[in-house]
Every structure is written in C-alpha cells, then in structure tokens.
C-alpha cells in the first residue's frame, strides 16, 4: 500500500516538474500568438505567403486560412477555413490541399515549443515536419492541376498564382 502511494507521489512530482518546463515555453509562446492575432500581423504574414500558397495551386483567398492553421492551430484554422469555404472561393481539391498542409503541419509554434521543452531536438523536428507537411500538399496540388487539365477548367496552377485566372 505504501509502495503504491510512493509510486503515485513520484508520478505527480515528475508530472509537475515537466509541466513547469512546458509552462516556461508555452506561456511566452501563447502571448506571442495572441499578439500575432490581435495586431494584424497574422494578416500581413498571410498576404506575404500568397506566393507560397500559389505553388500548391491555391488562390490568394487560401493564404489566410492556410497560414492561420499552420501557425496557430487546427481548430482555430478550421474555423477560418470553413468561413472561406462558405464564401465559395475554394473548391474541394484546393480544400484538400489546405487540409494536407494543415493536418501534418499545424500549431507549429505551440507544438514545437512543447516538444522541445520535453527534450526533442529542434532542427530535426522542424525540418522533418516541414518536409513531410509540404510534400503531400505539393503532390495534391499537382494532382489537382492534372485533373483540371483533364477537365479543361481555367484553374491551372500558374494562372491562379499569377491571378490571371479571370474570364
């Protein structure tokens, strides 16, 4: 019985100590995220990232939801994505590309902070995650492009990125 209590006690101590380590990273990180959101910097980053999202075959409207999902988090990002979807500017293929980008590659700031606090190695983590987050999305973008060729639609990758996809 005493043995069991000791196990519980030591578990609590280990847990609390790790929590403190996580807090040391997480609190500053979430303050920064709040700043990014409230100050409109997130919006500015999103506009700058339009050229990048173009590489995936995504129109400019996708930049904000995609960037929000990637930097901040899935649930918050999903809300923004759903709003864009209601506005009707993104089709299923494009939404899937965003999903492939955001799924593996979201809560970047928060997740990285916690895993590094727990002991993961920063550069391997970030680089590998980026590679595997980006490649499926690129592939999907390619698939969308090839499909659009087959259907003879206007939404080809280059014209979307250049914004010349207009009648």
């Amino acid at each position, binding site marked *: 019985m005493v043995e069991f209590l000791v*196990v519980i006690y030591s*578990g609590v101590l280990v847990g609390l100590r790790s*929590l403190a380590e996580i807090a040391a990273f997480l609190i500053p*990180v*979430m303050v920064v*995220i709040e700043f990014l959101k409230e100050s409109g910097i997130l919006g500015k980053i999103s506009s700058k990232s339009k050229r990048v999202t173009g590489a995936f075959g995504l129109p400019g409207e996708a930049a904000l939801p995609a960037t929000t999902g990637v930097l901040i988090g899935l649930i918050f990002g999903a809300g923004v994505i759903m709003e864009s979807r209601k506005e009707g500017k993104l089709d299923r293929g494009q939404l899937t590309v965003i*999903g492939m980008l955001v*799924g593996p590659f979201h809560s970047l700031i928060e997740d990285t902070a916690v895993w590094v606090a727990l*002991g993961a190695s920063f550069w391997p983590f970030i680089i590998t995650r980026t590679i595997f987050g980006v*490649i499926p999305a690129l592939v999907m973008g390619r698939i969308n492009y090839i499909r659009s060729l087959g259907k003879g639609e206007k939404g080809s990758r280059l014209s979307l990125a250049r914004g010349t996809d207009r009648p």
Partner: protein
Amino acid sequence: MNVKAVAFSGARKSLGVLWELAVVMIPIVIAVQALEHYGVMQVISRFFSPMMSLFGVPGEAATALAMGYLVGPYLAFGVVIGLGMTVKQITIIAVMLALAHSLPVETAILGKSGADARAVLAARLISSIIAGILLNLIL
C-alpha cells in the same frame, strides 16, 4: 491594440491550456510509472519492440504513439515523460506525432472544412511512419 491587454489575454489562455495539459498529463504520468513499476510496461515493450525498432524507439513507446494517434498529443506527452527516453527517441516520437495526432477528431474537423478527409488521413499516417523510419536512420 492595447499591449498589456493582449499580453494578459495570451497569458490567461496559456494558463487554460496548461490546466488542460495538467489534467490529462499527470494521471497518465502516474499510470505509466505505475505500469513500469509493476512490470506491465516490460510486457508491452517486449511485444512491440520488433515494430518499434523500425523507428528506433523502445517497445513501450508504442503506447505513446497509440495514444497520440488515437486521442491526442497531451496523452503522449505524459507517456514520454513517464518513460524517460533519449533525445533522439523523443525527437523521433515528436515528429511522428506532430505529423499525425488526434486522428479521429482532427480528421472529422478537416472533413467538415471541406477537404477529402481520407486522403489527408492517409497522407498523415504514411508521412508519420516514413518520417520515423528515416529519422531513425539519419539521426
């Protein structure tokens, strides 16, 4: 934008997250350490070692992966902390789980936002496994 208000709001939100983390993590840490103490982890370890050795992590880490995939990273944090692993192993688990976690819930959310949920799910799982194998070879 009121700087102080934003800072306070961010700090407050982080406390909320930390509380959620604590509520999930600490019981898991206790459970894992108890399982280790009473020998259950060794059994799990022996069973999953062949598979886990692909990723270069101990057999017990299968618990972390399973929890991370099915429920969420918070549970996996608890397991990782409870087990104690090397930096390389933690990095591998971190990447594998960062790519694919909370799969049931997140796949549902992504589906609702209009993506092809099965495709995203497949992409994430495959990426996670390949990343684990690759990192094991590289690091």
